[in-house]
């Protein structure tokens, strides 16, 4: 007995954390390396590698006539979904932090889109938006807002805002809960002091709650940036990126390229990776810079 435990000690942390490290190395780190490598390879549709071709994949990607449009869509998608989500969540967190009858039940309603499959949620929106028999069109016609049902998802100009709305809808629960958790960390005495000083509720919110909520907002923005940038099911379910590539983001475009040309798709994945990192770093820099200016 003594002997085996002695040998175990010499192995150190390996038996404990080894399996976790192995799993991460194999399924997370390996694909990263493989992806970067593939972006410099010429790969046939069959998967057969035809050797290195330098930066050809990247050049072909940047020469794609739709790439500019797709990049623009991605910027609009990420900025609007994350921005609107944060603003609405700040209000929702404030609301659900109050005491009122049925708070538990209403909070349960809030978590449904979080727990449910995003793809299935997006599909039900596609159904509700159907130009012939969708409930949203029926309602708008009944309210005399529209004369007849519109094909909301058929045109990019109306499809994109609806996709953003669904993106916000599924991002709200997590974000609101994160901000609610942030609100819990603010000690009650701070509000007490503000009230004694005769500060108005709005003033109290702006100069006390919001600054103290900063860490929670920071975390919520970063996690949402990553999630929304990589969001695939909403666009896939609602428009499939169409018509053409007009409602594609770089994530769905990457998926489409994967079918046609894996090497080019890998190049876009690497670009995506870079974009997410740049996005997060820029956001963190800007928010820290603001703090120093305070």
């Amino acid at each position, binding site marked *: 007995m003594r002997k085996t435990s002695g040998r175990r000690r010499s192995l150190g942390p390996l038996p404990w954390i080894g399996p976790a490290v192995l799993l991460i190395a194999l399924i997370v780190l390996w694909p990263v390396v493989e992806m970067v490598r593939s972006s410099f390879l010429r790969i046939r549709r069959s998967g057969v590698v035809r050797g290195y071709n330098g930066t050809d994949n990247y050049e072909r990607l940047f020469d794609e006539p739709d790439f500019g449009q797709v990049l623009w869509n991605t910027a609009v998608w990420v900025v609007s979904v994350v921005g609107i989500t944060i603003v609405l969540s700040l209000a929702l967190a404030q609301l659900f932090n109050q005491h009122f009858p049925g708070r538990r039940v209403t909070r349960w309603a809030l978590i449904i889109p979080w727990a*449910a499959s995003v793809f299935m949620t997006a599909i039900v929106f596609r159904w509700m938006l159907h130009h012939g028999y969708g409930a949203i069109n029926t309602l708008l016609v009944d309210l005399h807002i529209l004369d007849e049902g519109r094909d909301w998802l058929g045109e990019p100009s109306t499809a994109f805002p609806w996709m953003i709305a669904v993106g916000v809808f599924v991002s709200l629960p997590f974000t609101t809960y994160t901000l609610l958790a942030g609100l819990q960390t603010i000690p009650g005495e701070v509000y007490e002091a503000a009230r004694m000083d005769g500060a108005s509720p709005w003033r109290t919110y702006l100069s006390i709650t919001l600054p103290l909520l900063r*860490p929670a907002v920071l975390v919520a923005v970063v996690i949402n940036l990553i999630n929304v940038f990589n969001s695939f099911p909403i666009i896939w379910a609602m428009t499939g990126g169409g018509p053409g590539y007009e409602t594609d983001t770089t994530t769905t475009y990457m998926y489409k390229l994967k079918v046609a040309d894996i090497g080019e798709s890998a190049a876009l994945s690497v670009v995506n990776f870079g974009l997410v990192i740049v996005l997060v770093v820029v956001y963190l820099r800007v928010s820290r810079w603001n703090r120093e200016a305070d």
Partner: protein
Amino acid sequence: MTLKKVLITCTAWLVALIFVLPYAQMFLGALRPSDELTDAGYLPSRFEWSNFINVWKDSALGDNLQVSLMVAGLSTLLVVVVALPAAYYTARRRYRGRGAFLLLVLATQMFQPTALLVGLYREFHTFGMLNEIWALVLVNAAFNLAFAVWILTAYFSSIPVELEEAAMIDGASRLGALRRVTLPLAMPGIVTAVIFAFITAWNEFVVALALITTPEKQPLTVGIDSFLGEYEVQWQYLFAGSLVAIVPVVILFAFIEKHVVSGLTAGSVK
């Protein structure tokens, strides 16, 4: 009740209603008779409960459900088996490479399988594991590991070592103390990790879409896609299938609702 309170209550219930509405629509859609699918009315003339039964007969949905259960169940099991010892050791010891390990876990939490899709596809192509359910089990386990390690490490750290030592003085072995003292106390964390890993794997879509091409081997999320025909959509079956997938996990989620945020954001705050 003051006017302010009435206002707050009404707003909160209205918000709750908005969140439930799409799923209520899903429910009504699942109950529509097939000849009323293209009617614009809000409610069907009668509720076709047999949709929930028929959906299993004419499609691969039964197989899809089995695949979903297998992928979510096995990947969750793998997560627990791998994360428990790692989290326990990390909470109890200051070993060399501890910081590096935590950084590695944090980095994975920032990764999304979608972002690595091409790499994953190429890797499983190399291993000859495309179209294999095991590939999904591994991917889901690996990407859900970070959350489990974070939340379990936090729970184990909050349990005083003295409790284990006291049990050992009373004659329990190290493993016995772990089993009878530490694990029960860490149960809320373990339950949270298990349910969250299960739900995330259950809802996973894009990796399954990319890797699995045989309809019978696809999980529910991808399988219901088969009702979305080019010209005709069988909405009633699509939604009946979706509800079977959604209702159980929403109920499960309600149990862990409070703990999830700490696990998801813990890494980013430190």
